[in-house]
């Protein structure tokens, strides 16, 4: 059966089609087009995934109901100027769906994730997507390169449970697209949900997805940040800063303060929160000031037992981590990259606002600050 999606893929350039012949989507006996006529996923039920803007995560079942499905998503690439700090610094961002990070897609192990990726005419750059959760074709990057005015559809089987990065990876410009904002997370949940190391189920009441971005914004001779009218105009200056490997900003969710103040993440005492933390390019070390990671999948892959009682965990550049914590005390918690210079000076700080009753047993101020006695 030739679907409309397949027909669209068939209209891709000759070079792309050639790559697709060796791609995983190829079905036996369809040598003329290189496209799957009878995909193994073809008969599965389809549902549409409703993406939401981070730090929020789409509604999903923690334990799958029923068998594998094809989960359809659509993302539109948006090139746009954004403000990244409270000094009004402007940045030529490239984004999936307009947010940094792009939305978090949730499927279950054994599901197929089918993405329609759109690059509107109004954009200036070619874009694609490399799913770390997928297998083959440079993570799909070799099958999804689209110019302004084009779209593409990719489907892959999500058979490894975990949180995985996706990012843009157009030939010759990969790091620039990534540090310009083009990354996000896919969460592939085990069909029977998350477990501790001994098979006991772990549930969460809320989930927040945090994408950490290292930004490299050029400055002029006076030390002021420069602004550009298009991504292309910013390219060579930005590359010079990137090659120095010292970011001008390290931010959660696209800008300094994206997760503080009125955008702080709410929670309540007694609630269990899953924090997904993705780093498409650079390492980080998340720490919840005043709290812990009760269960942490440091490398983000749920087939491995989570670590218990973590104070700080490490997120390798090019991966996502997952941590579960039950809040036991009310107040403001700072969720930081515990390179505190990056947290305080470069921006990598978010806040969790937790309401509930204070537990004197866990902590008591025996004597407020006062004169030194005895």
């Amino acid at each position: 059966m030739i679907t409309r999606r397949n027909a669209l893929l068939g209209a891709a350039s000759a070079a792309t089609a050639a790559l697709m012949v060796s791609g995983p989507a190829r079905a036996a006996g369809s040598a003329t087009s290189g496209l799957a006529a009878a995909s193994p996923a073809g008969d599965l039920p389809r549902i549409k995934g409703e993406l939401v803007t981070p730090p929020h995560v789409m509604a999903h079942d923690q334990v799958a109901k029923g068998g594998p499905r094809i989960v359809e998503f659509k993302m539109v690439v948006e090139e746009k100027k954004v403000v990244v700090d409270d000094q009004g610094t402007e940045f030529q961002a490239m984004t999936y769906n307009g947010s940094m990070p792009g939305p978090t897609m949730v499927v279950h192990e054994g599901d197929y994730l089918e993405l329609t990726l759109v690059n509107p005419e109004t954009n200036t750059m070619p874009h694609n997507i490399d799913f770390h959760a997928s297998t083959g074709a440079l993570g799909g990057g070799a099958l999804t390169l689209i110019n302004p005015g084009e779209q593409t559809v990719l489907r892959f089987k999500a058979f490894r449970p975990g949180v995985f990065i996706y990012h843009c990876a157009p030939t010759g410009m990969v790091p620039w697209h990534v540090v310009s904002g083009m990354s996000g997370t896919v969460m592939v949940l085990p069909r029977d949900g998350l477990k501790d190391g001994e098979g006991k189920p772990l549930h969460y009441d809320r989930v927040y997805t945090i994408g950490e971005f290292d930004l490299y914004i050029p400055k002029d001779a006076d030390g002021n940040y420069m602004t550009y009218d298009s991504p292309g105009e910013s390219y060579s200056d930005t590359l010079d800063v990137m090659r120095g490997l010292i970011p001008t900003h390290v931010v959660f969710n696209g800008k300094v303060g994206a997760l503080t103040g009125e955008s702080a993440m709410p929670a309540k005492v007694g609630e269990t929160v899953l924090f997904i933390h993705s780093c498409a390019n650079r390492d980080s070390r998340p720490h919840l000031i005043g709290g812990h990671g009760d269960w942490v999948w440091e490398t983000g892959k749920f087939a491995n037992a989570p670590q218990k009682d973590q104070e700080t965990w490490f997120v390798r550049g090019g991966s996502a981590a997952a941590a579960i914590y039950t809040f036991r005390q009310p107040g403001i918690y700072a969720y930081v990259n515990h390179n505190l210079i990056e947290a305080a000076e470069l921006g990598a700080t978010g806040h969790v606002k937790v309401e509930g009753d204070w537990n004197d047993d866990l902590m008591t101020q025996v004597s407020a600050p006062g004169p030194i006695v005895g």
Partner: protein
Amino acid sequence: MRFLYAPAAILALAGFAIVALPPVAAAQISDVPQQRIDGLSTDYREAGEFLSGNMPVNAPVVTFSPEVPFFVMRRQVTRGEYGACVSAGACRALDTAGEPDLPATGISFEDANTYAAWLSRRTGEVWRLPSDREWRLFAGTRAVDDAFQEGSPDNPAERWLSRYDEEARRREPEEARAQPVGTFGENEHGLLDLSGNVWEWTSTCYARSRIDPATGQIARHDNCGVRIAEGAHRAYLTSFIRDPKSGACSVGRPPTNLGMRLVREEKGFLSGVRSFFGL
């Protein structure tokens, strides 16, 4: 100085008279237009942190009416004016370049004091930073009360959360770059740009006061390494900070920029020392 403990809610300003003087010739003092502050009185919420026992409480409100008149710059010190002090070898250069007509920003408390001392030497007048009381007096309706909702003794987090929400809601200037003089308008005393996006250093030290709930006695502990900068909110900053930051464990919102507006003492009054300490 009398301490009148008034209800916290209303900080009314009772203004009696204010006399605007024309700019005085540069050869004598500064080119900066000034206002004479005389006969004003204000309800002043004490600066610093107050504890009743172990419990943070709102600072008391007192009446402040200075015994002697003084002059205050109508606008903030500009980059150009500060630059003259740098050129003279007295002041430390700013970290960033900018138009000379813009307010000088990136100024530490130390920088401000150095500038005031240089200006005093150059003009033969006594220029200094205002005390926090003086600032709130001339800021008038531009001064922002920092009373907070006192939480319950059983749950300190109530106070942290309500304060956090209040700060998050606070309307502060969105534009971070220093703006041309006058952008933020004039207050009822003819002073420009108060509580805009440049905070102004005061000479007042951070202090923690403990009120003994039984006797009402106040024990006070000063830390003059931390001074008050005034603007859209009252800020406590280490004296050598030029560019305040928040983040990591500091959850509060910092001032957008740090600058200064100086006051000048009227000749003939032996008020200098007393005013410097904000008394």
